[in-house]
């Protein structure tokens, strides 16, 4: 694949990822995926006045997993929580100028990570938002060839 199958954008984010790390005193941290499946992502964020003031990621995975989370943090940073909730995997893929079909699952995973972080943010505020929990959450933890 390399240069042929990944867009320039993906390569750029892979080689110069933005917002690497974990936000100090995070308001929410979402961890999804599993090293067993070859992909694991952690999204941490800090909210101020209903806006995502800071967001960082850590990813174990392939180039597109890294690029997707990097791009996601860039998109989300500064957005309101409502806006963030409405970002879809498709938005991320488009911002990256596309992903190879076998890698599209990375964008699903990244969105799941974001939503889990938001879920936790709400939970800390005693708001229960089960709709933010990924439906196929469990499957990410299976050590099976069905790792999505």
């Amino acid at each position, binding site marked *: 694949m390399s240069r042929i199958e990944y867009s320039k954008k993906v390569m750029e984010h*892979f080689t110069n990822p933005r917002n*690497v790390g974990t936000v100090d005193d995070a308001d929410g941290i979402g961890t999804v995926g599993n090293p*067993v499946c070859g992909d694991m992502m952690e999204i941490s964020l800090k909210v101020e006045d209903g806006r995502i003031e800071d967001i960082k*990621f*850590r*990813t174990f995975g392939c180039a597109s997993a890294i690029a997707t989370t990097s791009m996601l943090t860039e998109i989300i940073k500064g957005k309101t929580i409502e806006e963030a909730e409405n970002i879809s995997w498709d938005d991320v893929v488009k911002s990256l100028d596309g992903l190879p079909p*076998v890698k599209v699952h990375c964008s699903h995973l990244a969105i799941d990570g974001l939503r889990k972080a938001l879920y936790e943010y709400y939970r800390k505020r005693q708001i229960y938002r089960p709709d933010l929990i990924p439906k196929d959450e469990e499957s990410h933890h299976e050590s099976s060839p069905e790792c999505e």
Partner: protein
Amino acid sequence: MGVLIIDTIEKGVVHLRSVYLDSNSGMPMWPEVISSMLPYMSEHYGNTSSIHAMGNEPKKAMEMARSHVAELIGADPTEVIFTSGATEAVNLALRGSTETASEGKKGIIYSQADHRTVTATAEDLSRKGVRTAMMPLDHLGAIKLKEAVSIMDQGGFHLLSMPFASQEVGTFQPVEDLVKEAAEREVLVHLDLTRSAFQVPIDVKKQGIDLATISSNDLLGPKGVGALYIKKGVRLKPILTGGGHERALRSGSENIPGIYGMGKAASIVKKRMGDYVPQMERVRDALIDGLLRIENTHLNGNMKMRLPNNANVRFDFIEGESILLMLDLNGIQAASGSACSSKTLEPSPTLMAMGLKHEEAHGSIQMTLNPNTTIDDIQYVLEVVPGIVENLREMSPLYNRIGD
């Protein structure tokens, strides 16, 4: 490293240096082999079956090639037939012997040390009702002898297939012991010499091998050619029928330039192996030593009993594809798992069979050398890799968690 990568992306394939460490998926050819093939591509375009003058040179070329290949592995020339590559040779060995095996004894024993060619073919035969069984591997990648023997003792198998060494982790297989046990139980042995023939001497006759697969490209010869050693007396049915070439075991007008090139490559390997292998092994050892100096890095396979050109290491907390891509951006070509599995997201079956955890398999990198690889190449690799690993680890949620 950052500067280097930006450079690479902007300028395309311009690297400060290019180091090829993926010899398992393609070998450079001996320059003499290329030039030796040219007359058979230009003047001598005849067919060996022709009874006229234009058939003479091709016929001679083919028999010379057969002798060279036979000599490399200690066979008689009449025991060697040419195929289109290792895959065809493996298919012919497995399928062809299954057809001639007596009912009730059609069965294949193999392992995850085998290349996908063997495992996929065994699986296909299994779907067609042929008995199959897998020998387990130990944690270093060697077939477990006792377990293999007890599979044989169940009976109903005509063939045991094994590589001389795992192409992926490089571990030598207990060939001598398995051949002895198989012979006692009248089970034929197919030995896959792909990836070992250019670097480890073999004598199929002395070792009592029944069938052996050799790849031309693996001898630094042309692609699209291979050979199957068939011990005198072992009967196979062809998978490609037609004009009756190769004693009716492999029909099809012969690829004379390719076959001649394979023969030439075999003769060069035979002559020079004693020189380039110790050299290649020293370079490889420097690579392994250097990589293991990076913390939380481990060697897959056996430290001593391994193919001289093979280094397979795993880096904790990070994932293979991103390592490969970073290496590639720095001009270093390597592989994760087998060449074929790099298209999929599955962890390597060999590594899994050795008992590695998924994440360990995912973080493994295979580096395979050839006689052209230099110590300078390796020094460059060792300059680049620590930075790549560090960068990726900094991004990894696993690393931090452990580091905490």
